[in-house]
Structure formats: structure tokens, C-alpha cells
């Protein structure tokens, strides 16, 4: 009997083709929006969390306290010293003022993040502020050997120094970030530097020569190849390797300084705390040069900007207890720093992403509700139009609940069809969107998550939405007096 009612409802939808499609379209738009936004949102979340998982949830980063603000501004890319008013991309900020001096190594202290400096020209105060920031940052590094003995939960610890150095090549000059990991650090924490995978050339071969490994985008920007010479702080270095790009974005963006940085969505979402520092310092290898700390300490020592200590917690040990112990150790070493676990950073980012996702899903839900209202309107009009038909059905023996069911199936089916089509369209859009959005969000290519829950949820929800939208009109239809209904024109 229900099957017969289903057939009758389907027949009715087909016979009122235009109106049915217009109604279905309303639901389709809503479902498409929900599917696309949810699948992209979940996909982005997964991709971002994957980045953290790659680094490792057993990692605790100790960011130098007091250097945070300075460091934020200095973690970015190359600032060309040559003319043409180059725009330097600086860890989320874009320096737009033109360089003022002639080619051959012009500094841009304002671009280094010192917000106190004013005017377009570099001043003596700017340079002094920069030096001051460097001194403060350099004073915060911890003794990692001592730290390992003070905090029993730690199994590994290393320091990653970061400096801003004047760079000069055959064709250009300017400032660039130079990271200074030790050989031990590279062995213990490659994940912290995005795997530190060499695309061309080799890794460091010794600590006695001036060797430099160049990040993918820096290599592109500086037009460097393996074997080329580069002057860092006026000291000649040889490029021994070029790193793999951290994501596809850097390849696509080329050297477009105006484009969004590829430092990762996580970094773009940074909240300005030490999280930002950690993320910008750890996830972005594309814009950096790498010099072994053993070598840097001899030739580049005076320009240390910040030193981030990376530690790994013993498997099974409590991260929060380890953090507490680190805080005590920092006090004992009379140093300054703030430990933050990768888990905390991930949680913070995930919280932000979830909020964005919720807001977007809410907007999409409004579209879906509008579709539902459209469906209700259609069903209400249908009841008015089909009053006589309802009378006929009742005269041939249809029960009230059968009329109700017939109309509910009718509206539910339209909702369901809208759901199926919306699911298909939404999935297609999210797949296309992931390709377009991935690079600009800094997560490379990511896969939107369209799992069984989303599919079944959307289908069931759209059917229920359809049926619910039809409840009131259907109830009205079922309550019609057959004689009155038959008399309707």
C-alpha cells in the first residue's frame, strides 16, 4: 500500500515537472552549500592536523620569551635590496615601502617588524632597535644538555637558531632568514623542518666548510643552483643542496611577493602568541637558508635573532607534566622561555578552524532552511490546487492518514531528490574548490572529506526537511471534508 502511495507521489512530481524542479532547486542549493562547506572544512582540518602529526605530537617547543613580537616580523621572506620598490613578504605582513638606497645591500629595518620606527627611510633608531631585539633573543637560549638532565620526561632536545642576515648573490642582495640547526638537530628533528628533504644536491657534509642549504622558494628567488656561491653577512658560502618545496603552493606562486605566503594555513591562522612563532619558524622552510650551527657559531654569531628549543617527550610520558618540569628547568637555568606542545598548537588551530566551519555551516543551513520554506510554499499551494483531487481520493476510500502520507512522501521525495543532486553538485564543487583553495590556504592540495556519515546524514536530513516542510500542508489536506473538497473548483 505504501509502495502504491509512493508511486502515486512520484507520478505527481513528474506530472508537475516545472514546479517540482524549481522546488527541488531550492533544496539542492542549500544541500550543495552544506556539503561543499562541510567537506572542504573537514578536509582542511584533516590536512592541517596532518601537518602537525608530521611534526609529531610528542614535541614541545620552547619559544624564547620576549622575542616573540620581534620574531614574528622576521620569520618571513626575502627583502630585495635592489631597487624597483620590491615588496617583501614578511610572515603575514607585506612591507610595501620602496627600498631607498642603491643596489648592493640595502636594509629595511621597518620591514623587520619593528613597529616603532616611522617614516620611509631607515634611521639610526631603527637599526638600534633591531640590534636590541637581536641581543634579547640571543640571551634566551637554553642549555639543552642540562635541560635533558633536569627534565627526565625528555628524550631529545636541540636548539634551532634563526637569524636575519644580509645576503648577497651575483644578481641581488637583501635580508633573508638563516636557520642554524646542528647536525644532531637535523638527525633528531627533521620533521620539525618539514622532513628536511633535499631535492637537489646533498645535505651538509662537514662542519668545516661554509656550506648552505637553500629553501625551495629562496632558491628560486635568488636564482641559486647547487654549487653557486652566496655571501651571508659578507662571508662566502657554497650552496650544497636545495630543499624540496614544502607544498605545491610555492611552485605555483613562484616569486610573486604579493601573493599569499605558502607558510601553511596553520600559520595564517596564528593568533599572534608564541603559537605564531612556533608555526612560522617550524613549518616554513621554503623561505630560509640553512647553515649548520657548528659553522654559524664561528662566522655568523653576532646576528642571532632567536633560538627555539625543540624537545621530544618520552613515549607514554605526560606532556603537561613535561611542560611543568621544563618551566622549572627554565627557572633554574635563569633563562626565559615558554614551552608549548605541538598538541596545544594543533588544538588552538583546530578550535579556530572548527569555529570557522561552524559559521560557514550555519550560513549554509540558512540556505537549506530557505529551500525548506520554498518546499512548504509549494506543498501548501499544491494542497489548494489539488483540493478536488483530495476529495476524489477520499470518495474512493482513501483514509485521512493515507492522504497525509501521500503528501508527505510527495514533499519528502522532492527533498530527497534535492538532497541527492545537492550531494553530487556539492561534492563536485568541493573537489574543484579543494584544488583552487588548497594552495591559497597554504595546505597544498587537500582532499575534501565526503564520508558515509556526511552522505547518509545529508540524504536523511533532506528527506526529513522535505517531509517536515510538507507536514502542515499535508495535515490540512488530510483534514479536508470530502464533500467540500469535491465541490472545490
Amino acid at each position: 500500500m505504501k509502495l502504491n502511495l509512493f508511486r502515486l507521489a512520484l507520478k505527481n512530481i513528474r506530472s508537475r515537472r516545472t514546479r517540482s524542479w524549481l522546488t527541488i532547486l531550492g533544496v539542492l542549493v542549500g544541500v550543495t552549500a552544506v556539503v561543499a562547506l562541510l567537506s572542504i572544512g573537514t578536509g582542511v582540518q584533516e590536512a592541517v592536523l596532518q601537518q602537525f602529526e608530521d611534526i609529531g605530537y610528542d614535541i614541545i617547543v620552547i619559544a624564547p620569551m620576549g622575542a616573540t613580537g620581534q620574531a614574528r616580523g622576521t620569520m618571513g621572506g626575502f627583502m630585495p635590496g635592489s631597487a624597483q620598490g620590491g615588496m617583501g613578504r614578511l610572515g603575514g605582513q607585506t612591507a610595501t615601502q620602496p627600498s631607498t638606497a642603491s643596489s648592493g645591500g640595502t636594509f629595511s629595518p621597518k620591514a623587520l617588524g619593528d613597529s616603532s620606527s616611522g617614516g620611509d627611510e631607515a634611521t639610526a633608531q631603527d637599526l638600534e632597535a633591531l640590534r636590541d631585539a637581536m641581543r634579547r633573543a640571543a640571551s634566551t637560549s637554553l642549555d639543552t644538555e642540562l635541560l635533558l638532565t633536569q627534565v627526565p620526561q625528555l628524550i631529545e632536545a636541540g636548539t634551532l637558531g634563526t637569524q636575519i642576515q644580509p645576503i648577497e648573490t651575483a644578481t641581488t642582495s637583501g635580508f633573508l632568514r638563516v636557520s642554524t640547526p646542528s647536525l644532531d638537530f637535523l638527525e633528531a628533528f627533521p620533521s620539525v623542518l618539514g622532513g628536511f628533504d633535499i631535492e637537489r644536491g646533498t645535505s651538509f657534509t662537514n662542519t668545516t666548510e661554509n656550506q648552505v642549504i637553500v629553501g625551495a622558494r629562496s632558491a628560486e628567488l635568488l636564482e641559486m643552483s647547487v654549487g653557486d656561491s652566496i655571501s651571508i653577512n659578507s662571508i662566502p658560502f657554497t650552496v650544497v643542496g636545495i630543499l624540496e618545496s614544502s607544498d605545491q603552493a610555492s611552485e605555483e606562486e613562484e616569486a610573486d611577493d604579493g601573493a599569499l605566503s605558502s607558510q601553511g594555513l596553520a600559520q595564517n591562522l596564528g593568533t599572534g602568541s608564541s603559537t605564531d612563532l612556533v608555526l612560522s619558524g617550524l613549518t616554513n622552510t621554503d623561505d630560509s637558508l640553512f647553515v649548520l650551527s657548528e659553522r654559524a657559531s664561528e662566522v655568523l654569531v653576532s646576528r642571532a635573532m632567536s633560538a627555539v628549543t625543540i624537545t621530544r617527550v618520552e613515549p607514554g610520558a605526560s606532556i603537561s607534566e613535561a611542560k611543568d618540569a621544563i618551566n622549572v628547568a627554565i627557572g633554574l637555568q635563569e633563562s626565559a622561555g615558554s614551552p608549548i606542545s605541538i598538541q596545544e598548537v594543533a588544538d588552538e588551530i583546530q578550535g579556530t578552524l572548527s569555529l570557522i566551519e561552524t559559521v560557514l555551516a550555519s550560513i549554509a543551513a540558512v540556505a537549506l532552511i530557505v529551500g525548506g520554506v520554498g518546499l512548504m510554499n509549494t506543498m501548501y499551494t499544491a494542497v489548494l490546487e489539488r483540493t478536488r483531487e483530495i476529495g476524489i481520493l477520499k470518495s474512493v476510500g482513501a483514509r485521512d492518514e493515507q492522504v497525509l502520507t501521500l503528501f508527505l512522501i510527495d514533499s519528502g521525495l522532492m527533498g530527497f531528490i534535492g538532497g541527492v543532486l545537492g550531494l553530487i553538485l556539492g561534492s563536485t564543487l568541493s573537489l574543484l574548490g579543494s584544488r583552487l583553495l588548497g594552495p591559497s590556504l597554504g595546505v597544498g592540495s587537500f582532499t575534501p572529506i565526503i564520508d558515509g556519515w556526511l552522505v547518509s546524514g545529508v540524504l536523511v536530513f533532506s528527506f526529513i526537511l522535505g517531509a517536515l516542510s510538507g507536514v502542515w500542508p499535508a495535515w490540512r489536506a488530510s483534514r479536508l471534508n470530502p464533500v467540500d473538497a469535491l465541490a472545490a473548483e
Partner: protein
Amino acid sequence: MLVLHDVHKTFLMGETQVHALRGVSLELPPGQFSVIMGHSGSGKSTLMHLAGSLDVPTSGRVEYRGLDLTTLTSRERADFRSSDVGFVFQKYNLVGNLTAMENVALPLLLRNTTAKQANGQALEALEQVGLQDRVAHRPSKLSGGEQQRVAIARALVNDPTMILADEPTGNLDTATGERVLGLLRQLTDDDKIVLVVTHNPEIASIADLVVYLRDGQVESHHFQEVAR
């Protein structure tokens, strides 16, 4: 036997009470071709609706084969219509987006009958009214006479015991009207109650029982011998 005991039916039209039936008592025996005549507004259609349990009286009783129809619930009345009553209306009242066969099968589809079974029975009913070659046509593609025959086939498909027809020839030409009446007349051979509501005296001339209604009351009723 369909029996009406002192049946009253009052409608509220705005704030005005309209007394459609005022104390109607009648007995309609099976196997008889009964005709209810009267002017417009005399209450004949209302009487037919009450007889077919499409509506309930304001007071009084309607009994069919000993069952008091006025005590039935809405669902029971629907079931009663489904099993015992076949309606034929002046305006045919076919569902526009269904074919002739689907229209005829409709009463069966609302019961526990499979679509295949319903279509089989619908085809038989359509054959009975001579429309076996018009089964796939929608009402808009059928003539008035054909539509009325589809309506009769639909009224017969459940093999009801009572056929109630409201001005069944009202929209038909004379020849088609006679054919439709012939079909209805034939049904009394199966001991069915056939009740036709009309103001056409020609139909009354072929009826076994003629009831005249005036202002909601029975003015006269009489049996007559008709050559079959």
C-alpha cells in the same frame, strides 16, 4: 437495504444555517434502480453523500445492512466507501495526471492490492464499459462520455454493493447518456443498490423507485414497473 431514519443535515454558510435535509426517512432496497429527483437545493446531493458515508447527518440514522453508518469513525467510513460504495459524479472527477487505467485502479491501490493486480482488475472494469482501447489515455484526451464511463469503471472496480451517481448524464449528449444509464441499469441485475440523483424526468421514467425531494423533505416516493 439502505435505510435513512429521520435524517437531518444542517450546514453553516457564514452565519446562516442552511437546512439541507429535514427529517428524511427512506428505504432503498437492493436490486432496484432508484432515482431521487428534485430542484436544485432540494437536498438530493446531500442525501447521496450521506448514503455513501461521504458525510454524516446532523441528526438521525443511516443504516446499511444493519450497520449504523453514523456511528463510524472517519477511518471506518473511508473503509466502508472503499469496500461498499462506488461514486459517479456529474463532473466525472477523474485525476488529471493519471491515465484511464490508473484512475480506475486508484481505489484498489489505496488498499492492499499490488499494482499488477489492480491494473488487471482495472482493465476488466474498463472492458466492461467498452474502453479497453483507451486505457493509456489521460482524461484530457477522452470525450465526456468516455470520461464518464471511466468514472463508472472506477466505481465498479471494487465490486461495491451500492452505486451512487450524481447527475451522471448531466454533461453528456442524449445517445451517450442513454448508454451510461444502460450501464447503471444493468448493475441492478447483480443485486446492487443503484441510486441516481437527477432532475431529469427521463431518467425517472426508467427507475424502479422514484423519490421526490422538496426543500429537504420527501415530497413523494413510489415504486413503478419498468420493462427491462
